[in-house]
C-alpha cells in the first residue's frame, strides 16, 4: 500500500510539473518560488540537522569493530577495520563513504539442510555503489548548466561518460547504470518479503522520486529534446538572482525541476540525510582505543561525595552511644578474632 501511495505522490508531482506551467502564476511558482524555496529549505535544513548532531553528546568512544584490536605486538591488528589511530579512522571512513565497506559485509541468513547458513549477499552493495557513484557523476555533469564558462574538468567528465559512441546525443554510461541500479533497488524492496515488510512510505517515496527524476532527465536528453540553451540561461539567471521568465522551458523540464526541488526540500527531513549523517556515525568515525586511553566525559561536574568514613566521623558519638561497632576502630579487632 505504501508503495502505491508514494507512487501516486510522485505521479502527482509529475502531473503538477507538466501542467503547472500553463498559467503565468503557475510558471512563476514553478520557476521562481519553488526553486528558491526548495534550495533554502535544503540548505537550512541540512545545516540544522548536522549542527544538531554535532551538539549531541558523544562522551565515549563506542566504535563497532570487525577485526583484531590493537594488542600485543606479535598479534596482527586490523588497522582499518579496527582502527586505533587517526589515520586508521580516516581510512575506515574513506572505505565507508567511497566503497560502502559495511554494506559489503551484508549477509543473508537462510535455512538449508536443517541448519542456519549465513550466505553472502553482495547485490545490495553492488546496486547501492553503482547508484551512488552514477548519481555523483550525473550531479557533477549538471554543473555545465550552472557555471559559465564551463570548467574543463566538467567537459572531461562528459567525454568520459559519453565514451561509447552510441547515438546522438551520445549515450551517457552513468544514465544506464543509474536507471539499472534504481530499478534493482526497487525490485529488491518488492521481491524480498522481509524487506517489503519493513518498507515504509518514505522508503518507496525516495526511490520513486529518484526514478522519476532520472526518467524525466533521460527523456529530455534522448527522446523529447529540450532546448538546453534556455535551460542553461534559466539556471544561470536563478544563480544570479535575476530570474528570467522563459517560455521556451518545456513542460517536461518543469516537471524535472519540480521533482528535483522536491527531492532537495525533502532531503533534510528524510532518511536521505545519511548523505551528511554518514560522516557523523559515532560507531564508525572514532578510534577503538578505549582500553588504552581513558576517555573522561568532558562535561562531568564535580560530584559532591560523602563517604562512610566521613559519615561515621560525623555521628561518631551517637554510634558509640548506641553501641554500634565502628569500622575504623573495630576493623583491626575483627581481624584478630
Amino acid at each position: 500500500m505504501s508503495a502505491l501511495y508514494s507512487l501516486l505522490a510522485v505521479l502527482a508531482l509529475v502531473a503538477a510539473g507538466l501542467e503547472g506551467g500553463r498559467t503565468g502564476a503557475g510558471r512563476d511558482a514553478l520557476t521562481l518560488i519553488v526553486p528558491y524555496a526548495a534550495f533554502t529549505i535544503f540548505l537550512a535544513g541540512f545545516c540544522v540537522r548536522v549542527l544538531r548532531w554535532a551538539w549531541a553528546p558523544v562522551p565515549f568512544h563506542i566504535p563497532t569493530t570487525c577485526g583484531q584490536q590493537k594488542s600485543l605486538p606479535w598479534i596482527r591488528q586490523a588497522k582499518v577495520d579496527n582502527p586505533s589511530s587517526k589515520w586508521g579512522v580516516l581510512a575506515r571512513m574513506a572505505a565507508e563513504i567511497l566503497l560502502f565497506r559495511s554494506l559489503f559485509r551484508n549477509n543473508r541468513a537462510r535455512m538449508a539442510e536443517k541448519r542456519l547458513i549465513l550466505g553472502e549477499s553482495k547485490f545490495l552493495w553492488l546496486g547501492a555503489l553503482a547508484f551512488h557513484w552514477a548519481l555523483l557523476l550525473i550531479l557533477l555533469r549538471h554543473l555545465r548548466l550552472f557555471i559559465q564558462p564551463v570548467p574543463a574538468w566538467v567537459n572531461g567528465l562528459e567525454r568520459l561518460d559519453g565514451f561509447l559512441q552510441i547515438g546522438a546525443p551520445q549515450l551517457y554510461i552513468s544514465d544506464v547504470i543509474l536507471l539499472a541500479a534504481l530499478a534493482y533497488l526497487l525490485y529488491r524492496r518488492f521481491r524480498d518479503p522481509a524487506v517489503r515488510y519493513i518498507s515504509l512510505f518514505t522508503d518507496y517515496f525516495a526511490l520513486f522520486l529518484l526514478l522519476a527524476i532520472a526518467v524525466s532527465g533521460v527523456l529530455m536528453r534522448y527522446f523529447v529534446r529540450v532546448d538546453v540553451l534556455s535551460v542553461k540561461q534559466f539556471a544561470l539567471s536563478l544563480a544570479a538572482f535575476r530570474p528570467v521568465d522563459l517560455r521556451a522551458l518545456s513542460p517536461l523540464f518543469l516537471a524535472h525541476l519540480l521533482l528535483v526541488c522536491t527531492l532537495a526540500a525533502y532531503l533534510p527531513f528524510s532518511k536521505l540525510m545519511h548523505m551528511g549523517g554518514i560522516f557523523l556515525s559515532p560507531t564508525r568515525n572514532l578510534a577503538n582505543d578505549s582500553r588504552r586511553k581513558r576517555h573522561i566525559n568532558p562535561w562531568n561536574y564535580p560530584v559532591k561525595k560523602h563517604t562512610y568514613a566521613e559519615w561515621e566521623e560525623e555521628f561518631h558519638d551517637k554510634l558509640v552511644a548506641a553501641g554500634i561497632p565502628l569500622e575504623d576502630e573495630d576493623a583491626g579487632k575483627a581481624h584478630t578474632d
Partner: protein
Amino acid sequence: MRDRIWIVAGLAVFVALITAPFWRARRDVGDLAKLPVLTLPANQTQCVAPVAYMRASHMKLLMAWRYQVVREDERKYVAFNGKVYQKNLTETCLGCHNKEQFCDRCHAYAGVPSPYCWSCHNQPQAGASAVSAAALQPQAQPAPGARRSPDRLLSRMSGWPVSPVPRRAQ
C-alpha cells in the same frame, strides 16, 4: 565536543561548494543572462526545420541524414515548408552556418563537448556567407504547426513539433 570545530568546518565547506554557482554568478552578474553571440546566416531566414526544433534536436536530424545518405542513398530532404535540400553537412549546413561562430560557440555555452563529426567532415572552402551577429533569443512561442503534431503527448511535453525527421530514419 572537540570535534565540533571539524564538523562545522566540514559543513561550511559543503555549503560553500553547494552555493559556489551563486557566488560565481554574483561575480559576473552582468554577462550571465546573455546567450552566446552567434553569427546567423545573412542570406537565409529559414533553416531546414523550425528554429525551435533545430535548436533542441539538430543532432537527431543530422543522425537521420547520415543514415539516409550513407546507407540508403537518399540525398534529397524535403523540408517542412516544401523546400528541397541536399542532405549534406558540409554543403547544406555549413553553407549557411559557420562552425566556429555558430556550432562551437553554442556547444561551448551549453557545455557539450565538440562532437566527433569534425574528425572527418570538413568546412567549405569559402566559409559561411554569414555576417550578421545576433544574440539568440529564445522563442516565445513554439513554431507554428506544433499542435498539429501527431504524437500529442510528446508534443505537449516538449512544446514543439516532435519530429520533422522521416520516420524510417535511424
